[in-house]
């Protein structure tokens, strides 16, 4: 107790107060915090707050006048903005759902497979599976466009080889499948991240636990469900929140493959592309910085709600075991 400093969670309040009295304010902490806090404030917090401020203004006679929440009302009700906004939000959630249902379970399965001792060449598999993650979006978008191209792509040939050639479609150009196709491309690219996070969490489980379970007669299946999964639950939360936040930043892939208009017919339009078009303008359309800031503001609040849910609902409920 003496040398644990102020961080012991179980200590009663009285000793804590005496400790604070005994020790002077740790100034060195400020020194360590300042550079990061300074840079973060200058390049992240200040622009963010200023962007939220701009979203409360509207152009009037060539200048910006304070407009209160009018921009947000316009975003949610105007016949020009509202349908695009809700569609983009829906597409964002489809994108998120595909990642949660495909990327993370497959990532977990791969992680479990990789942590199996009987698998040979684990490092090679791990590297190969992680490789797409380090590729640029532009390259990934271009590769998949070529693979899926009805003119030059290999997808049709591959499908014919297994007798499924009749099912080939120009998916990226079709309103229904385009978004799901792009989501799956993104899954392909980022499968390495949940895989590595789960893999690291699984490696942290002491071998004795698994061995003890074996001795008690548990099958591999039971060991996974009863021992390993409960122990990596905190990582499941982290992966979910990373997926949630990353999905709102999934602008690059859509922009590089479908362009800023997020065709066909806006069917792949997510909040990121919607923001880009509005803020910077596109082709003959001039940029509208205040409405762009409003969309960015809406994105900020949506992400904030998700993160708060994670912090206050998931993190408080999930049981963390000391290993």
């Amino acid at each position, binding site marked *: 107790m003496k040398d644990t400093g102020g961080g012991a969670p179980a200590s009663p309040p009285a000793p804590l107060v005496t400790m604070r009295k005994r020790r002077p304010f740790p100034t060195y902490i400020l020194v360590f915090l300042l550079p990061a806090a300074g840079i973060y404030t200058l390049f992240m917090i200040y622009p963010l707050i200023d962007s939220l401020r701009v979203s409360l203004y509207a152009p009037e006679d060539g200048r910006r006048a304070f407009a209160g929440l009018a921009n947000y009302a316009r975003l949610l009700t105007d016949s*020009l903005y509202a349908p695009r906004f809700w569609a983009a939000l829906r597409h964002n959630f489809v994108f998120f759902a595909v990642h949660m249902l495909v990327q993370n379970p497959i990532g977990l399965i791969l992680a479990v497979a990789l942590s199996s001792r009987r698998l040979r060449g684990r490092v090679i598999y791990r590297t190969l599976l992680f490789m797409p993650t380090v590729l640029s979006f532009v390259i990934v978008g271009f590769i998949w466009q070529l693979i899926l191209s*009805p*003119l030059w792509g290999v997808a049709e040939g591959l499908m014919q080889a297994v007798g499924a050639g009749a099912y080939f479609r120009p998916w990226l150009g079709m309103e229904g499948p385009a978004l799901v196709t792009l989501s799956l491309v993104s899954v392909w690219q980022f499968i390495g991240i949940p895989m590595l996070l789960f893999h690291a969490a699984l490696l942290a489980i002491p071998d004795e636990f698994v061995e003890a379970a074996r001795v008690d007669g548990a099958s591999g299946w039971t060991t996974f469900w009863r021992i390993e999964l409960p122990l990596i639950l905190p990582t499941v939360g982290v992966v979910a929140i990373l997926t949630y936040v990353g999905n709102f930043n999934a602008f690059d892939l859509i922009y590089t493959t479908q362009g800023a208009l997020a065709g*066909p017919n806006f069917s792949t339009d997510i909040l990121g592309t919607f923001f880009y078009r509005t803020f910077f303008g596109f082709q003959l359309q001039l940029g509208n910085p205040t409405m762009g800031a409003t969309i960015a503001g809406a994105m900020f609040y949506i992400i904030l709600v998700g993160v708060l849910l994670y912090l206050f609902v998931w993190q408080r409920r999930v049981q963390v075991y000391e290993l």
Partner: protein
Amino acid sequence: MWRARWLTFGVVVLLVIAGCQQRQAAQAPSAPVTLTIESWRNDDLPVWQDTILPAFMKRYPNIKVVFAPTAPTEYNAALNAKLEGGTAGDLITCRPFDLSLALFNKGFLAPVNDLSGMENFGDVAKSGWITDDGSTVFCVPMASVIHGFIYNGSIFKELGLSEPKTEAEFFAVLQKIRQDGRYAPLAMGTADQWEAATMGFQNIGPNYWKGEEGRLALIQGQQKFTDAQYVAVWRQLARWRPYMPRGFQAQKYPDSQNQFTLGKAAIYPAGSWEISLFRRQAQFELGAFTPPAPAGATDCYISDHVDIAIGMNAKTQHPQEARTFLEWVASQEFAELYSNGLPGFFTLSNHKITLQDPLAQTFINWRGLCKTTIRNSYQLLSRGEPNLENELWRVSAEVIKGALRPEQAARQIQTGLEKWYKPKQ
């Protein structure tokens, strides 16, 4: 010892170099004036450097001109930043309509009304760079692009086809190519959307809305996109669908270009800017025909769209030299050099010029046969939200795919336009 010697040698060399530089700096006032051109046409750099600018500098040896392009997608933002920071070049390449008008209204571009040579440009040519009241021109028009259809001459010969004049003939040709089965009749996709509007709607449309007559009527509010002549254009586009390549929904613009130049497609709905690329890549004979005439049409109309001009930075240090350059841009010599150096970009002046590229000559000949107009979404009508041009891309692509009916497309466009546009009377 050796080291000391080398050191002395090095110092002497440095001193000599420094001395030379100083002498150069001292000479600077009497040296030729240097003008810099801002442009987004980085593809054209060799032509400017090797052909156009040497011709100018030969005539005016005391003016040195540097062509300094930026990437097309960055140009607007970069130029704005440079103009605001006072570091922009002396000569500014102008995009048509609102982008340049905004620069003029902010005082970044100087008026060019009184340049000698401006009388060589007609009203349509100047329409892209003129104030709304028509009083001040602020850029010297350089070039336009013309729409039409480019075809693969070898395939036409092989299948015994001839250039279609009317729509009935056009679809008969397409039908024959499709029946043969080896080639895609039309090289076009809808994945990038803009080809459907630019190479589709704006290409064949002027024949229906009678060029300038319809375009101005739209601006004045006397015609609507829901009128029969506009719906008919989309109805024509919908008829293209069976002749599009398989999987055209996911086909992008470079796909179509490659498909055509590799000889896998017979007809390419085109803009003349494709000529130089097709010349480099295609191994077969190229021909071109005008947008086919609708049944019962007597006159023909083509889209001869104003695309590029050049103006003068209002804050340039060398206004006299910049004016000299702009006056030369309005001359016959520049018109010939530019149109021949960049086949497919045609001078907007009234000078009679001859082109060495026969395909480019075919396109420019149409100016004498048909009435010309510009794309109807560019002047005034794309200032608000929803943006008319972007909406035309979307609905035209949807009509070709069969996801929208022509009447629905027309209604969506008109509703969007009426949301913000009040016709000028």
